[in-house]
């Protein structure tokens, strides 16, 4: 439903373009912004502009950064001999959220998919190989999604790294924690059993 107020409609339209935001949510957000005091709207606009003007991609791992190197690459306490390869920046956020990983990252910017027109050359795979060739890397941990395209990309990278002096690992295909086995799909169970560990 529209109230026929063009400026409000435009804000709703722009908000609804955000991932995960439906039209109803966009309307609620727009009304919230509309009703907020002047200060909030300005702060929001500043933040949006600031993030675009002041960020770039880390020249080493392609994470978002305000400097040449991102805060993770620049952090001397992190183990730079471990590189975790992910598809996208949101995956870095997810892994960082777990606080279990103390190595550094490499963000591919996608996965191989001929149907979507993405070939290995479109991803930051050559840059990954350069990093490994540059020395200092002991382990490359492949942490891509389990889609057929994610699998294809992991296979491709493993093939490329095969003859290099690094250990290649991948995250376990596992049963999600807290899930009942009967609700986990059979392929996940099958693979989890195939890659079982001794305790």
């Amino acid at each position, binding site marked *: 439903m529209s109230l026929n107020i063009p400026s409000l409609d435009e804000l709703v339209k722009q908000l609804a373009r955000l991932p995960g935001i439906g039209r109803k949510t966009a309307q609620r957000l727009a009304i919230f912004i509309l009703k907020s005091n002047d200060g909030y709207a300005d702060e929001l606009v500043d933040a949006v502009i600031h993030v675009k003007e002041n960020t770039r991609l880390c020249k080493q791992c392609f994470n978002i950064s305000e400097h040449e190197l991102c805060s993770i690459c620049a952090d001397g306490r992190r183990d730079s001999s471990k590189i975790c390869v992910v598809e996208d920046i949101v995956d870095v956020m997810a892994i960082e959220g777990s606080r279990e990983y103390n190595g550094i990252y490499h963000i591919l910017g996608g996965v*191989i*998919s*001929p*149907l979507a027109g993405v*070939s*290995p050359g479109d991803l930051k795979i050559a840059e990954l190989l350069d990093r490994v060739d540059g020395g200092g890397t002991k382990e490359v941990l492949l942490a891509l999604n389990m889609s*057929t*395209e994610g*699998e*294809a*990309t992991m*296979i*491709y990278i493993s*093939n490329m790294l095969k003859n290099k002096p690094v250990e290649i690992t991948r995250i376990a295909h596992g049963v999600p924690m807290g899930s009942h086995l009967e*609700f986990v*799909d*059979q*392929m996940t169970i*099958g693979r989890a059993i195939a890659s079982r560990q001794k305790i």
Partner: protein
Amino acid sequence: MLLKNLSIENFRIFDLLKLQFHPEINIIYGLNGQGKTTILEAIYYLSLTKSFRAKNDTISLKNESEFFNIFGEFEDQERREQSTRIYFSKNEGKHAFFNKTKVKLFSEIIGNLPVILLSLDDIELTSGFPTSRRKFLDVLLSQLYPGYLQSLQRYKKCILQKNKLLNSDADKNLYENLSVWNNQIVEYGTLIILHRLKFVEFLNKNICTVYNKISGKTENISIKYNAHLYSLNFMMDKAGIENGLKECLFNYRDTEIKRQTSMIGPHRDDLDFLKDEYSFKTHASQGENKSFLLSLKILESNYIKEISDKKPLVLLDDIFGELDNSRIENLLTLIRNQGQTFITTTHNNKFDQIVNDSKSLIHISGSGAKN
């Protein structure tokens, strides 16, 4: 399995239709074009989340309706009450609900209510293209093994990706780019082949007995799993099949590149139906063909019982057309023990002697129904 009732809304010609079913046999009768097959189609939707006669869901939407809804309550093999609902709208897409809870993946409900269907189109199984025989295997095995369905979906995705790659002009590093898909094609393909072989083995163990019982003849019938281009036999284990596929994919990679299509794997395999080592397609009479098809369906349902411990719903779509009453009776005695049966027909009088409970008769006319 026992389908107790069905309600459909905005589906094909029906605005709203609610039916109660007989636990053993249901004769759905009425003139042509009144929606008899639509009822079987709706039941099939509850089992497999899709139609057996339409390629997409929009076709089943009643004219100018926003959505359709199919809801059925059934009793499982342990007599627990369950329900399934399939909802489709052009805007929201298709959603499935099991016991009123929305499921994330359709594969979670496929197999809950196994179904077998026998229709006049099944003649395609013996005389048609390999596609229909692969579909026969895939529909059955997907209902029995969730892992089969998932492997099949991933396998098909890999074939699409690989074909796209083979069709593109990029010839730089093509071998390497192909290998990432071939690698997965071997993994999922092997799983698919293993399950298919196991079923074919079951068929071969039982087909002669069932066929001879139906036809009244003594024939030597067999079914061969026809692996396209790669070598395969029943003695092979998982590793053997994997190696066979790998080797073949390697040997044919230039041919695949030249022809720009995936030539090797279970998506190109076929079944050969043989009578005394000769193909049914060319060496069997129409009657023999029918007996054979019926045998296949009976074994399909026996296999469901053996693997899942469930009796499937049996859907018979207008297959008794020109048969006389005694032949119908014979066929029905064979098939009705397989599970709760749903028959569409234009001639209900043919079933008078067979059906003694009037609750079994469902008359369909226009957009309504009555027992």
